[in-house]
């Protein structure tokens, strides 16, 4: 029983991480109808930038994080403004193909620049274990969970309460009407993509302090993010959180009770299963077509 509680706790921790990792992806899809296959590589860039900023430039954790957020937001903004904007009226496929190309480009440029060695972002909190009842968690992970929760809450507030957020939601619902209401939809799309990139980078740097920051992880992160987003429903904010927790717990239980080597399979099997039964994800609001 204690083992189960430990697995559950581990799963909830990693689940929170998954939730933040996937949030940018689901937001970009929900607000822009764009499936960003480069999401994992933006995460990777955030991680490597965070590592570079802290260990090479000597910045503190939060200053480095601010820098990462700014740089990735700016990069995301530019990519949307100059590339993705050209593809917007061509349907879904060009966006998918373009971001696949972007993913390949980012991953291999990172490999060229930093090589494939794994790095770790130094965490501001030590890795000491902390006892919470029957369960052990490290302080570093608790800190990361706290930052994740804060980031998720900030993103939620931004979308629900700020003018920019309202403009984003309006643009998603009806771009033409939004434009007629005076919203500069091109800027909104760029901001949305920037937000997605910034969230990915935040996750990358934060989790780079727990796991690794490495040029090759983009693919796996993308895949896991897709699993989360499909579980929770593409475009659903709450779904990303629930999906993340679900994946985290599922992986933890599988790894604990079955085998650790094949843990990655459970996510894919879940996706295949879910999509068979509900082709638009567990909590998606989209109705099935006749």
């Amino acid at each position, binding site marked *: 029983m204690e083992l189960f509680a430990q697995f559950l706790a581990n799963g909830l921790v990693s689940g929170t991480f998954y939730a933040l990792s996937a949030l940018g992806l689901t937001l970009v899809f929900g607000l822009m109808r764009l499936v960003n296959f480069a999401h994992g590589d933006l995460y990777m860039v955030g991680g490597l930038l965070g590592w570079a900023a802290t260990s090479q430039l000597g910045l503190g954790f939060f200053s480095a994080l601010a820098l990462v957020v700014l740089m990735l937001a700016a990069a995301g903004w530019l990519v949307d403004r100059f590339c993705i904007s050209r593809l917007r009226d061509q349907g879904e496929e060009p966006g*998918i*193909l*373009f971001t696949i190309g972007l993913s390949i480009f980012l991953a*291999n440029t990172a490999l060229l620049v930093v090589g494939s060695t794994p790095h770790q972002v130094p965490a501001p909190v030590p890795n000491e274990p902390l006892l919470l009842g029957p369960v052990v968690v490290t302080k570093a992970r608790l800190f990361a969970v706290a930052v994740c929760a804060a980031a998720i809450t900030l993103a939620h507030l931004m979308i629900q309460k700020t003018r920019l957020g309202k403009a984003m939601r309006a643009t998603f619902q009806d771009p033409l009407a939004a434009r007629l209401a005076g919203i500069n939809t091109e800027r909104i799309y760029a901001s949305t993509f920037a937000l997605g990139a910034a969230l990915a980078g935040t996750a990358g740097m934060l989790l780079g302090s727990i796991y690794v920051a490495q040029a090759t992880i983009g*693919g796996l992160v993308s895949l896991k993010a897709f699993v989360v987003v499909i579980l929770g429903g593409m475009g659903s904010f709450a779904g990303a959180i629930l999906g993340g927790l679900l994946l985290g717990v599922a992986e933890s239980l599988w790894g604990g009770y079955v085998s650790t080597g094949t843990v990655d399979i459970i996510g*894919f*099997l879940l*996706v295949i299963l879910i*999509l068979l039964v509900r082709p638009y994800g567990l909590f998606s609001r989209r109705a099935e077509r006749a």
Partner: protein
Amino acid sequence: MKCIEGRALLAFVAAGALFAVAVGDEYLLHLCVLVMVYTILATSLNLIVGYVGEFPLGHVAFFGIGAYAAALLSVKAGWPVWATLPAAASLAALAGFGIGAITLRLQGPFFVIVTLAFAEVLRLIAGNWVSFTNGPMGIAGIPHPAFVDLGGFISGKRGFALIGLALAAVSLFAAYRFVYSNAGRAAVTIRENRYVAQSVGIQPWRYALFAFVIAASTAGLAGAFYAHYLSFVGPEVFGFSFTASMIIMVLLGGKGTLTGPVIGAVAVTVLEEYLRETKELRLTLFGLAVMGVVLFAPTGVVGALHRRLARLAR
């Protein structure tokens, strides 16, 4: 259109035969073999991209299934090459039927991701099921076709090039027949507008699945041939490197055409060999190329040619 494409494909096969017979240099023959493998792969991916209208990012799954099937059948069961090739293609077709029946219900990004999920699951299984697939160490010692080791004119790399050419010809023929058939037209109709297709009597799944199975079996054929050529198969045969190459071939050449994949295959083989020293640089450029093609030339080389020809014809 049908005549032009048919003739272009025949010309390619003839040119390939001429090349394989006339050229003696080992390296060039090796390139010829690679071109053949890539032609089959690109044609196969293009069937789905161009005629089902979806993007199976996990298409490499069938390549891998064919490769492992050939490896296992020949190494563990002692089957000769002329038996493993059709067996691998059939197995891949079966897998295509199963996976297609599941994934073709989905559209757009969901289809992309679930096919990728299948490919990843297969990669993980191949890499972890040590007793069956030797895990990450792969299966070595896959035999060559008998006549290739005999010495003589059609032995060695030339023999492989000719076999590859024959297989490519079969694949191109299958694709050609499909595209210009009622089934092919039905597939295009479904791709263009599902509602219209249904209202004129087309059963949507049937033709998408048909195209999918043909694509899967030809990819499996390519995989089996590749296994016998390299004499080795490992989990990387399900890996992203092949996927990236396939995407760029189909996009660059022009999706939805029969000659596009061929042009793409030749271009990519040459490019890859030219840049073979630096894998990362090659892939970085690939990534840029994909972005560039999507932004500026979405119909690829052949698409641009079509438009040029159409404008001249008017």
